Every structure is written in structure tokens, then in C-alpha cells.
């Protein structure tokens, strides 16, 4: 199964200090381990929401809203797409991530697309 890991911005909003070299190295080590285990299918980090846009749909109207967006805790800061065999496996992998704060969400990607 494929799962999407969403890293919520939480405390690490745009204003937060950039991660230390040490923290980056830890993260890279973890990411490498995931790649070597054949788990990572895709990954990405998002730029701050101040550079983002939203498009609101209302009937035939479309409204474009500029960032930054207010609900910082819920904003997605980055994502991973993992290939795992179960939700439990995803949880066990995620527990090993070298983070000391923040919330991460695991969601299964449905294999039955809309078509």
C-alpha cells in the first residue's frame, strides 16, 4: 500500500530558525535509510505558505487567495510518499524519524482512483 506522510508546519513556521547542520544530517541519515529499505517513492518540501495560493470554487466563480494562510498548525510543510505493507509498518518507520517536535499525519492513498 502507498501512504502519504504529511509534515504539519506546527511550530516550524516560516519564521522559525532554519534547522541546524546536525539536525539536517540526522534527517538525511533517516531519509537514506528509508530509501535503502525501498520505502520512499517520492518526497518533497514545500516553500512557506506566504508564497502559496489558494483557489476557492463557488459555483462557476473562482477566487484566488494569496498566502500566507492563518491556520499555521494545519499547514503542510512537506510530504513523503511511502510504499509499505501496512499502516503499522508506516507507523513504525515514522516513529524513527529524528524529530523532537511537530505533528505528522499518515494517510493511505486509495488505490481506487476516481475514474
Amino acid at each position, binding site marked *: 500500500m502507498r501512504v502519504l506522510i504529511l509534515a504539519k508546519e506546527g511550530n516550524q513556521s516560516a519564521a522559525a530558525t532554519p534547522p541546524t547542520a546536525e539536525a539536517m544530517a540526522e534527517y538525511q541519515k533517516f531519509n537514506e535509510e528509508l*530509501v*535503502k*529499505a*525501498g520505502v520512499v*517513492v*517520492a518526497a518533497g518540501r514545500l516553500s512557506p505558505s506566504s508564497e502559496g495560493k489558494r483557489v476557492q470554487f463557488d459555483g462557476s466563480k473562482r477566487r484566488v487567495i494569496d498566502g500566507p494562510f492563518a491556520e499555521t498548525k494545519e499547514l503542510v510543510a512537506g510530504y513523503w*510518499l511511502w*510504499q509499505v*505493507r*501496512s499502516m*503499522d*509498518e508506516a*507507523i*513504525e*518507520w515514522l516513529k524513527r524519524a529524528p524529530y523532537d517536535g511537530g505533528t505528522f499525519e499518515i494517510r493511505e492513498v486509495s*488505490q481506487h*482512483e476516481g*475514474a
Partner: protein
Amino acid sequence: MRSPSTRAREGALAVATEANRAIEAIWRIESARLIAGLARIVGDIGTAEELAQDALVAALEQWPASGVPEKPGAWLMSTAKHRATDLIRRRKTLERKYEELGRDVERDQGGTDLDTAIDEDVGDDLLGLIFMACHPVLSTDARVALTLRVLGGLTTEEIARGFLVPVSSIAQRIVRAKRTLTEAHVRFEVPSGPERSARLASVLEVIYLIFNEGYAATAGEDWIRPSLCEEALRLGRILAELAPTESEVHGLVALMEIHASRLRARVGPSGEPVLLLDQDRSRWDHLLISRGLAALERAERLGAAMGPYALQGAIAACHARAATAAETDWPRIVALYDAVAQLAPSPVVELNRAVAVGMAFGPAAGLELVDALVPEPSLKSYHLLPAVRGDLLRKLGRSEEARAEFERAASLTENARERELLKRRAAECAAEGMTG
């Protein structure tokens, strides 16, 4: 036969309480590394697997009460390591006794310092385990079962379900495979030099076999079994990181990623197969396609001449790059099949080449090549020969001959879904014959 303790261990695994589910997931993550590290120390897969499973049983006994340790992998390894130490000590005592009897029993691992043995690169351990499980001394069936068991962390039941064979057959296959490795004194090593490419070919063959059994199930009710594809793909991706300079590994990964990208489009609403040129390309998984193309680039960048897997990956890429079936670059596919046929000639490759020729230069040219393959003994009961021939005949307007070929193909396949598809084609030809 499985020992009662093995059955107890597997039974223990099946108890799916909350804590146990976490432990099972950890086992899936850690078991290959664990078995690999232990195999290097004790020298054989069977003992390594037993030691690893003993550690798992200890976890199942202790963790529900004590909680899962912070580094579960390290915990399992150190628990198993203690047991390995005991075992080696016992073996050494035994060896001394043998020596007293004047027999020369020399064990490779006799002089290994256990701590350095465990701390060395885990990657090499895994690679060593892959090479051992895929050793050419084993039959392909045995290699496949052992690989899924020790590298995939699959239970005997899961493997049996994947291949639609009784659990007892898989269990026996694994036990016999371990015995064969021991009797043949297969060493735990990462082969180098000229031996390496032959051994690697054996590994790639096993992974591709697992993939193909999922991709086009040879038997049974389902046309595809995606979990086997996923397992093979995972093994391939792992191998690509363990042996990044082997272009054929990337070639195989490219081939599997691109083929897997079509899994969703290969099955119609009621489970019937949909062939490549009839597939809705918007349903292809474009993430897997881009991964496949990247893997192919990795293979090409290594500079060596493309091997059979990289060439087949390149053929798959030709299809992946074509926005519609009509835009397929068939002449390039023919050229790539020419190259495959030179490197790894086989009647099946010739048949595929004939299909490409038929598409590039017209059905008559394709049929000429297929007709030449008809006497080939190895294709005698290969259902795709009459299926391809039927297809070409149909395009040439020879409906009655085409119908007979599709009927023949339907009688040869063991996959129920494929049989339905071929019968439908035969019926279509019959209808065409009436009107035409």
C-alpha cells in the same frame, strides 16, 4: 518438515493484538537485516533465521509488558547476538571434540570477532544474504521461496498464497533450500570478479520471476497479483541502493517500475485483462513511470553496454513515453529487440520482436517471423504464440485462421481471466468471418 517450535513461532506471529501488530511491523522492517547480520556470523541462513526468530519470540514475550524499546532493531540484534555467541561457543567446544577425534572441522566464522562482525556495514550483509538466497545451486522455485522468506520477511502462508501452492510445499521448499546450501558449503559472501555477474544474474532472475508471477499470474482466477509485484519492486529498489554501480540492476528496476505503472490499467471493471495497446493511458501511474525513466537513465549513465534488462526497460520506456498507442515508436522497439535477441536470444524474445515488426512494418512481415517460430519445441505449449499469430492473421483479414489460433491459445493458458479474453477474441473473429 517444520519443527514444532517453528510452528509455535509462526503461531505467535499470528496473534494480532495491538502490541503484537507493532512487533510484527517491526519484524517486517528488521528481519532481513537481522538475518543477514546473523548469517554472516554463523555462516548459514537456517541458523540465522532461527536465532532471529528466537529474538522475535523474546520480543513478543517482553514488549507487551515492558513497552517497545526505543531502538527495537538494536534490541532484537543484541538479543540474537547473545544467542549467537552461545551457539558459537557450543560449536567451538564441539569442534575441539572433533579435533580430538582427529577430524578437521574448520568453520569460517571461528575466528570472527563478534562485535566487529556485527558492526560492519549492514548493506554488505544484506547483499550477502541476497546472493546466498539466490545461489544457483538452488532450483528457481527454492530461490524464490527463500528470498521472499528471508529478504521479504513473508510468512510461509503468505508465500503459499502468492503462488497458489499448498503451505506445506513452500515450507518443504524452504527447508530443503537451507539444507542444500549447507550441504553445498555455500559461503556467506558478496561475490566479486567474474563470478559476480553470474551470481547477480541469478539474483535478478529471481526478482523478475516474483514480479512476473504477480504481473501476469500463470495460473488461477486473478489476472494480476499486485502484492507480488510490490514485493519484487521493493527488493529491486533495495538492490539498486546496495549495488548502485550495476547497470542491470537499474535496468531491471526500470522495467519493473514501468510495467507496474500499468497495473491499474491492465484490468477492466470486471477483472478481465486489458492489453497494452487497448489500455487507457491516463490510468497509468505517472509517478512510477518517472521513477522507471530515472532508473533507466541511471543504467545508461553507468556507461556500460546495455544488458538485457536495461534493453527491456528501454522498450517499456518507449511505450511509457507514447501519449497514445498510435504514437508508439515501433521501429525503435524493433531495434531494441534486435539488441536483446543478440545478447539473450530466446524464442520468446523472437516472438516479441515479431509483434514489434508487425506493428512497425505491417502484419505480413510480423506473420512471416511468427510462422518461422511455429516449429520451435519450447513454444509448443506457449499460449502467446497462437495468440500473436491470431492477432496478425486477423489484421490480414484471415478471420477463420485467426479464430482457430485464438481457440488454441485459450486452451493453452492456465489463467482463467486470460482464457476468457482469448475466447472473446475467437468469437469476434468468428463474427468477422460471417460478415466479411
